[in-house]
């Protein structure tokens, strides 16, 4: 079995994001970038499946600018066998990304495609579901547990009401939740080894997909600021303020 894992390079989750003064976007210069957190869970799960002997190859793919190679390289350092970078500049909407991934799926013919459930930059939560639609494959979104049963997967999904379990036939798409597993750190020897693993580079324009944005970003602004609150000295003062000032209890 072959698993393709899509990974995205995003602003690190610990960075306090700042809006550009000209309101065209957020500041990305000199800002720490990392793998989108739930994509780390997707890689981890694929590598674990390979280690258990149920998969033979894990291929990491990313779409983005040249530097997204670092994100692919990180996936190789935690156990992916080889990488693919689809080079494209500018804003890429999930629809465009899913069409590019569709081309890679048609070429690589994986049995499973894993990715994070949501990217923490645009917060769209679309790509996995869109890729499933384009391929007409089953989708298991927000996965917190995956069990492989022959040519099927049993997946536990985190939903608003609690948990849901579905059974999907392979080939399939799984989008991973943060609770699926605990992503490992890359060891130094593995980082060194990853440097020797191949990364194939493909230009998005060579894949015959129109990636031009369909959504015009008119402006990006700071959200309204909350006005600073007060520190209370005691529980009694807190309760008094909630009752008499805020009038919420």
């Amino acid at each position, binding site marked *: 079995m072959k698993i393709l894992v899509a990974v995205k390079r995003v602003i690190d989750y610990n960075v306090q994001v700042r809006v550009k003064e000209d309101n065209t976007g957020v500041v990305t210069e000199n800002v720490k970038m990392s793998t989108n957190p739930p994509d780390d869970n997707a890689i981890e799960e694929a590598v674990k499946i390979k280690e258990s002997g149920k998969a033979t190859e894990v291929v990491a793919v990313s779409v983005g600018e040249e530097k997204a190679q670092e994100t692919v390289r990180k996936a190789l350092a935690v156990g992916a066998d080889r990488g693919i970078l689809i080079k494209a500049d500018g804003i890429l909407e999930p629809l465009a990304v899913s069409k590019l991934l569709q081309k890679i799926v048609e070429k690589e013919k994986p049995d499973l495609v894993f990715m994070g459930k949501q990217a923490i930059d645009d917060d769209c939560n679309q790509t996995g*579901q869109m890729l499933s639609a384009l391929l007409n494959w089953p989708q298991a979104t*927000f996965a917190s547990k995956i069990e492989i049963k022959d040519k099927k997967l049993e997946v536990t999904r985190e939903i608003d009401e609690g948990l849901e379990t579905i059974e999907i036939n392979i080939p399939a798409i799984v989008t991973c939740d943060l609770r699926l597993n605990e992503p490992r750190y890359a060891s130094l020897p593995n980082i060194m080894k990853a440097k020797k693993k191949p990364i194939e580079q493909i230009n998005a324009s060579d894949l015959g997909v129109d990636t031009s944005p369909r959504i015009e970003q008119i402006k990006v602004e700071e959200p309204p600021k909350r006005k600073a609150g007060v520190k209370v000295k005691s529980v009694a003062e807190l309760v008094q303020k909630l009752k008499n000032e805020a009038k919420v209890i």
Partner: protein
Amino acid sequence: MSVLLVAEHNNKELKPFTLNAVTAASQMDTDLHAVIIGNNCGDAAKKLSELPLVKKVIQVEAAHYENFVAENFAPVIVKLAENYSHVVCSANTFGKNLMPRIAASLDTSQVSDIIKVISADTFLRPIYAGNAFATVKSKDPKKCITIRPTSFDPCESSGGSAPIEKAEPSEEFNNTKFVKREEIKSDRPELGTARVVVSGGRGMQSGDNFKLITSVADKLNAAIGASRAAVDAGYISNDHQVGQTGKVVVPDLYIAIGISGAIQHLAGMKESKVIVAINKDGEAPIFSVADYGLEADLFEAVPQFIEELNKLNTIQK
């Protein structure tokens, strides 16, 4: 052209956020139709027809719609979408799972999780966990939009009498089978719509200590929330998680206990009307959004808080 709203329901009743989605959809175009897909969902369809903003209900029934599998729902909606300019539903796990499957089939770039309708094609949406707001304009001929339910008021729920039309079901998608759903039943208000939310974080130190959160919630008739750290640590189940990848809540009162206030948690609660933080670390980021901050050991402060609440005789029920 008109708007098609996808109703969320449990085959008997509408899910409360359907009313918020109706409000949002009606702001895109007042010619608003609603589709309900399910199995023996006639009662829910009738309730949908009673919403005054809904002009027509389309009911699609089949056994394979019983459990809301997106792979079964999407083809029906894609077919119906021929007659509409917009397809709309809530950005909760139901809509997040379903809408991109519809959008890709329509070759539409979806606009997710909008918090404001500026015009029929222009919307406001938070990005980067709510640290920036983007104004975006969809250039696609058909628009697929998910809305953040807590950013729109629920619509009027009675007085309407829209016609209910039946539409043909699509074929079953055989590669996905529903197995089971484990819903956590509770007598408390729902987290997404509760007037008061009491949340615990890693500072609770154990699942057992969450009893303190429960006691406060009992006093205030509140829903119980949690930070991702508390859910990851196994103190409480995932359906309580508030934050960027959990639920977004906008209660009148949000009480954060033992929560440091990571960016990802703030994304889910910072629009609350009044925020209270109880934390022993005076530098914790949660204090930057709190209207009332109490720097104290929660294991001393929370029992006192419960005692003080006991003294009040104006407890909201």
